[in-house]
């Protein structure tokens, strides 16, 4: 664990884990937590007790992450569970997501904020349907780094030949993905080989352990620091004796770097002004970049409200009422053809109508089906929508914040779709 002096230098890596049922995801996370000494005695005692009760021969590390009662009974992970650990180099947030197809929506949830995806591959089976699906989802959700862990090496006699064969298959397959930074590690989560500690059984492997990869992968350029985007979340007007005329626009920078004195444009009005100051409770700051939460003051009095976006005059997102997107349907209630839905994009709310389903994608084969227009839970499709008011969008692969939106069922208020602008 980190000591008190180094905490100001640590950064944060969010990663997600995916694999088929029984690929050993929970065991891997348990192993990472256990070997990095992030498990406490009372947690360890609780899982020792539970393992004994079930008559298991060794302590089942998977029990550490299976939080809900139904999961413990069925022995599977049914929802996204978040886990935390830190080493002296970094703090980590793990989104542990289930592998079986009916919970694809949870994997998408976990993947949406991740910097890195660990995809588990069973060394006995190699690439299976779910490997393809998880890889595609990670790539579609714009995760910048993928690490394939070829797990259960203990069950293939730690064979280098088997590992090389799977690695070759994965390399060929993953060349089609958007994600460019792809790595491979042979591991045994059960026995801890190459997870935190180097394997003594696989001396033929010269690369890093999984933890070392997680600690050193370069994430500073994962966010867009080029295109200035500031969705206004809330207008701050104290109207107090001390600040009678203060008007600040609060929000979280979604891209680019904003500096005092910068010329800016406000969408949708198109009015331009200059940044008079960037405020925080700790005082004014010189510049703000993603993902900072700040308050921007402008030199001119312009009518700005929640849902507007502050950008640079020469670099603005497109203002669109007709948007094309890749969509994953998340609800057990099928999509209504030509249905109307509520839409949330950055801090902007709108209504929209599904105009067209260009194709449905088979995420196992990447085959595009243009005939089948029935969209059910976990289906992925390319769609066209028409919105009631313009959205200020960027391509998702360019900016994960301004390129994403969700659809909400107006009758149930449930979040029913995750969409990524093309």
């Amino acid at each position, binding site marked *: 664990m980190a000591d008190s002096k180094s*905490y*100001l230098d640590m*950064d944060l890596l969010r990663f997600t884990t995916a694999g088929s049922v029984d690929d050993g995801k929970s065991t891997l996370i348990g192993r990472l937590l256990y070997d990095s000494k992030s498990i406490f005695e009372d947690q360890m005692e609780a899982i020792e007790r539970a393992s004994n009760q079930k008559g298991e021969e060794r302590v089942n590390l998977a029990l550490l992450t299976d939080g809900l009662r139904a999961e413990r009974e069925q022995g599977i992970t049914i929802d996204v569970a978040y886990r*935390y650990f830190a080493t002296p180099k970094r703090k980590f947030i793990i989104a542990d997501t289930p592998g079986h197809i009916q919970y694809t929506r949870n994997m998408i949830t976990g993947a949406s904020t991740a910097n890195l995806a660990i995809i588990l591959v069973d060394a006995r089976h190699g690439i299976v349907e779910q490997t393809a699906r998880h890889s595609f989802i990670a790539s579609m959700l714009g995760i910048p780094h993928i690490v394939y862990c070829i797990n259960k090496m203990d069950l293939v006699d730690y064979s280098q030949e088997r590992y090389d064969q799977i690695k070759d298959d994965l390399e060929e397959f993953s060349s089609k993905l958007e994600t460019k930074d792809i790595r491979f590690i042979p591991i045994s989560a059960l026995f801890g080989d190459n997870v935190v500690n180097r394997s003594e059984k696989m001396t033929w492997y010269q690369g890093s352990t999984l933890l070392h990869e997680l600690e050193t992968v370069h994430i500073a350029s994962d966010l867009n620091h080029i295109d200035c985007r500031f969705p206004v979340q809330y207008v701050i007007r104290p109207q107090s004796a001390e600040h009678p005329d203060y008007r*600040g626009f609060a929000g979280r920078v979604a891209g680019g770097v904003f500096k005092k004195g910068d010329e800016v444009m406000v969408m949708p009005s198109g009015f331009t002004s200059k940044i008079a100051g960037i405020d925080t*409770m700790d005082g004014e700051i010189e510049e703000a970049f993603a*993902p900072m939460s700040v308050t921007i003051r402008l030199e001119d009095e312009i009518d700005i409200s929640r849902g507007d976006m502050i950008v640079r005059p020469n670099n603005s997102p497109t203002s669109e009422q007709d948007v094309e997107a890749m969509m994953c349907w998340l609800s057990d209630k099928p999509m209504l053809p030509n249905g109307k839905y509520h839409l949330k994009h950055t801090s902007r709310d709108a209504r929209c109508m599904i105009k067209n389903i260009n194709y449905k994608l088979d995420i196992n084969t990447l085959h595009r089906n243009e005939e089948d227009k029935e969209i059910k839970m976990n289906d992925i499709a390319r769609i066209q929508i028409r919105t009631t008011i313009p959205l200020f969008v960027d391509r998702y692969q360019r900016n994960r914040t301004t390129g994403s939106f969700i659809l909400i069922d107006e009758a149930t208020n449930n979040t029913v779709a995750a969409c990524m602008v093309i």
Partner: protein
Amino acid sequence: MSNYNLTHLRELEAEAIYVIREVAAQFENPVLLFSGGKDSIVCYHLARKAFFPAKVPFPLMHVDTGHNFPETIEFRDNLIKKTGDRLIVAHVQDSIDQGRVVEEKGFNASRNKLQTTTLLDAIEANKFDCAMGGARRDEEKARAKERFFSHRDDFGQWDPKNQRPELWNIFNGKKNMGEHFRVFPISNWTEMDIWQYILHEGIDLPMLYFSHTRKCFVRDGIIMGKTDFVITKDEEEIKDMVVRFRTIGDATCTGAVASTAGTLEDIIEEVASTRVTERGGRSDDKRSEAAMEDRKKEGYF
């Protein structure tokens, strides 16, 4: 480019402020639950940051079991006097007097479970549509699965198997009449993050968190502070011990740890080397392996 990278504490802070501002924008009548514990103190600090230089645009609410350490109440009242924000206190004693709940009996009697009724009644009476709180996902297994924006039906219940998917940083706070939300701005913080942040920001805490001498007794291996609210058994010896509290809850079920950590730096060192979770000293979680999950489903915080 590499300069444009936030430290983990700054990133967590930015995330929490973003969540708190979403609450103020999406709900008509939100409230920040405030217990006087370090997590809710940090939440309140973040809320003040979110709206500076304006005041926090929602009240704070303390569900008071009546079994608090006096230091907690004194700290709470001083803090509110200083900031001038609005505090509502909902009393468990009122729920007992109204016959809404029945006090537990016996040596391990606690008002912890009774809080749920008082909380839900107060949410209904004040017409709050969102209650923010300082729960963290690293605290407990059931909490690890909770969303930032967590939907509650009109009975205040949580349906863990049917949670709304929560993607990117887009939060869906839409609901029907009578339903409400629980929102957890510091979901992604760990106990260590909280302490480091308190040190870094110079946030004041109740003295209970720091090492002090107190009359204590030991029950089931847990050190308990002696207060008027707990009945001790004959064999339980009351003696002066040097302790501090890792969490501050109801005095009847919050255990202390033997500690000489008198400063934030000492505490961080202690937290870094400790091998027991902070809720390990809370007897309310030990009732069964799924104790928290069951209480949360009913509407507990």
